[in-house]
């Protein structure tokens, strides 16, 4: 019995040691860069990983680890293009991508920046697209894949809450134009292809205005 407890304690200590090493390595690169080409992440993604709304730098904090890891690979292999992010990703080793994805996925979700109140028609269109889609044009609702309130689902479906309207709009346009084509089964290319400019403006503003946590009861 005593031995088990000791073994357990040792094991936990080792485990804790391992994670904090990973996390601190991730934190170091985030704050200082890796010294061979990757600029400090926080310069653009914020000290808390919350991103910068006005510049369209995305929130990284609390995103699924597997999703973050995949995006770094996708920038590096150009299935997702960005003049800003590609050189950064290319300068990261496999191991560095691992620790950074782990680090950011464990950061607490920061409170989203306050966004201006939505006009009625924008709010209405945004809510319909988010919760009901437009099936007459075989467009599913965003939350059928991104989860209730857009909080994200599992490893492959990132949250949309806590991202700025600039960033959401940029990504939807990138899929329409083909500069981002890293989505599994072309799911987002197909979604974006069915959105008009007015749709993109409304849905981007709508998600940017939602709280980052679990949604309150949706009223159909």
């Amino acid at each position, binding site marked *: 019995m005593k031995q088990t407890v000791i073994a357990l304690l040792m094991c936990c200590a080792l485990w804790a040691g391992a994670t904090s090493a990973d996390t601190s390595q991730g934190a170091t690169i985030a704050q200082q860069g890796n010294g061979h080409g990757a600029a400090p992440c926080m310069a653009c993604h914020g000290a808390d990983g919350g991103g910068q709304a006005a510049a369209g730098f995305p929130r990284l904090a609390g995103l699924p680890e597997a999703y973050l890891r995949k995006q770094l690979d996708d920038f590096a292999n150009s299935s997702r293009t960005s003049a800003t992010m590609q050189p950064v990703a290319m300068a990261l080793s496999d191991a560095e991508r691992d620790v950074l994805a782990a680090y950011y996925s464990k950061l607490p979700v920061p409170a989203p920046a306050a966004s201006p109140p939505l006009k009625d028609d924008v709010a209405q269109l945004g809510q319909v697209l988010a919760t*009901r*889609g437009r*099936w007459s044009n075989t467009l599913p609702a965003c939350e059928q894949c991104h989860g209730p309130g857009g909080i994200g*689902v599992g490893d492959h479906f990132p949250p949309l809450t806590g991202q700025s309207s600039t960033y959401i709009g940029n990504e939807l346009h990138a899929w329409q134009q083909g500069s981002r084509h890293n989505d599994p*089964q072309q799911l987002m290319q197909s979604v974006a292809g069915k959105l008009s400019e007015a749709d993109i403006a409304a849905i981007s503003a709508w998600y940017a205005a939602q709280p980052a946590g679990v949604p309150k009861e949706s009223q159909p």
Partner: protein
Amino acid sequence: MKSKTSALIIATLVLAACEHSTPQTAAPVAKAPAPASSAPKSASHFTPPPESAIPNDDFGKQVALGRQIFMDPGKYAKAYVGNQLSCESCHLDAGRLAHSAPLWGAYPMYPAYRSKTHDVNTFAERLQGCFNYSMNGKAPPLGDPVLVALETYAYWMSKGEPIGTSQPGRSYPKLSKPALTPDYARGETVFKRDCALCHGDNGQGQQAAGHTVFPPLWGPQSFNWGAGMELVTNAAGFIKANMPLGRGNTLTDQDAWDVAYFMNAHERPQDPRYKDSIPATRAAFHDTPDSLYGTTVNGHLLGQGGASP
């Protein structure tokens, strides 16, 4: 004694009502082979009224309640639901989508004589079966507020349609027979490539914040062995037209058949009509090549119901 027996017979018939085969087509595969390309043509079909047209009065309240039940029966009809599915899991867009067995396709076609039950079933009886089988729950009694609200919703959605005329877009498409006999291993390949991202590597779906986002395809939280989706024809038609979500009609017919076979070659909750033994239950309710109940696939006798994934 006599009245007891007939009550029993009626109960059995009602229970059997949602075997989920469309009343008029007795033997869907064999009889009328669909054209080679089974992708639904752009042929126009009935357009139900927009949701914004639900009236703001006491009638409209029942319509809205029916819609809520349809989209989230686990919440609004909790007592009658025994799994993580919703009606909308299989009838997309809140029961409005053509080729997804829409409510506007069904409502004007009841009461219907069903050769399978040798009886005429009302729309409400049809709905009862869906709770027994697809929802693996129990049927709300006739007249129950749940059935009233669902029927009101379907009625409202069907406004302006002719009664008793099968509309284009009703039901799921009937695919023509596959070139190759549906196959488990090929189906598994399709599943891993096109389905697992959402429905999970083991088909158990995914939840977020306590909501089912991607429903389970088999196992204890899915539809039971009495449900219409258990028939490979229904599953293949549904999958071809509606899956992967938002990208319907991108799979080949062969892929749809293979993955439907693979899905239905997994264990799920027992058929509530189970009687005596698996062979006897197969003989009574699953006596068709379209059902894998009671057959052995990959060394596993299907229909044991234990439903571990």
